[in-house]
């Protein structure tokens, strides 16, 4: 969602609500009361989670991630990739340059694939968010299935030779 698109969308939604309230006031009321309910739900969970994100961001710097991951290797490196992927914040594309520099520093592609997938899919604050909206059984089961899935798919990638990848990328 582009930043500039959002005010426009809000404007359209406001206009649509006004229009609906002219024809069907009961429907407009329903739109607003549903939205209010979700807004309140959002406000009870968003502030503490963003605070946790802020603390992660301030205390776990990207260079720390890079240093430890680059030096680590084997099963320990994978474990580190798993743990650090969960701690750092940001969208997937923010992880691309870090993953690239990990490859340049000699981290294995397997570990980098694990790191990317974990970065994308497993975030402690996000898990809290998922529990809130979709329920603990849903969130925890999905998490429990995602971790082995990431390890398996990274292993498959290692098997089917993504070795030439570094040359291709340069």
């Amino acid at each position, binding site marked *: 969602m582009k930043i500039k698109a959002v005010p426009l969308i809000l404007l359209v939604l406001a206009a649509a609500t006004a229009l609906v309230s002219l024809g069907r006031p009961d429907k407009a009321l329903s739109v607003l009361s549903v939205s209010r309910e979700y807004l309140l739900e959002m406000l009870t969970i968003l502030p503490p989670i963003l605070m946790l994100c802020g603390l992660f961001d301030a205390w776990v710097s990207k260079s720390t991630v890079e240093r430890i991951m680059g030096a680590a290797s084997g099963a320990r490196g994978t474990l580190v990739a798993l743990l650090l992927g969960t701690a750092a914040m940001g969208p997937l594309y923010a992880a691309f340059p870090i993953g690239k520099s990990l490859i340049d520093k000699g981290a294995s592609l397997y570990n980098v694939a694990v790191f990317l997938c974990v970065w994308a899919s497993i975030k402690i604050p996000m898990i809290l968010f998922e529990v809130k909206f979709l329920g603990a059984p849903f969130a925890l089961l999905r998490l429990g299935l995602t971790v082995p899935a990431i390890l398996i798919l990274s292993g498959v*990638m290692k098997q089917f030779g993504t070795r030439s990848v570094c040359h291709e990328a340069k």
Partner: protein
Amino acid sequence: MFIAAVWGIAAAGLLWSFFKSREKTRAALRFFRRSFLSLAPSVLAIIWAIGFILTFVPSDLVLRSIGREAGWLGVILAAAFGSIVLIPAFIAFPLAASFLKQGADIRAIAAFVTTLVMVGVLTAPLEMKYFGRRFTLWRNSLSFVAALIIALVMGAVLR
């Protein structure tokens, strides 16, 4: 209970951070303010849109496209949608919850959430620039398949 625990953890972390380093705490608070302000408009937009969806989109449309009787086609549709759109999970979870309330299949929702975070069609060109075409195609297509398998297992367990 859950909400109280999250607030408690955040408050404890803030307190700990405050005693450890004023400077880092300030940075954390800056991050908080910046992300809250930048998220607020899109959160408001999606919540308002959810109000419209729940009021006007008939449940049977949701049921037909991603409901239980839609079967695998619905799951694949949801997975494809999750692969293409670029929305933060913060915003996607309440949306997914509203579809679930409308009667969407839990497998479709699981597939949507999983591909949303792990598969990026729009970010693929960027990913190729960093890691090459082969790595990108493998990682994204395997993630897509993994999402479908995860959805299948979750459907079997949670049903």
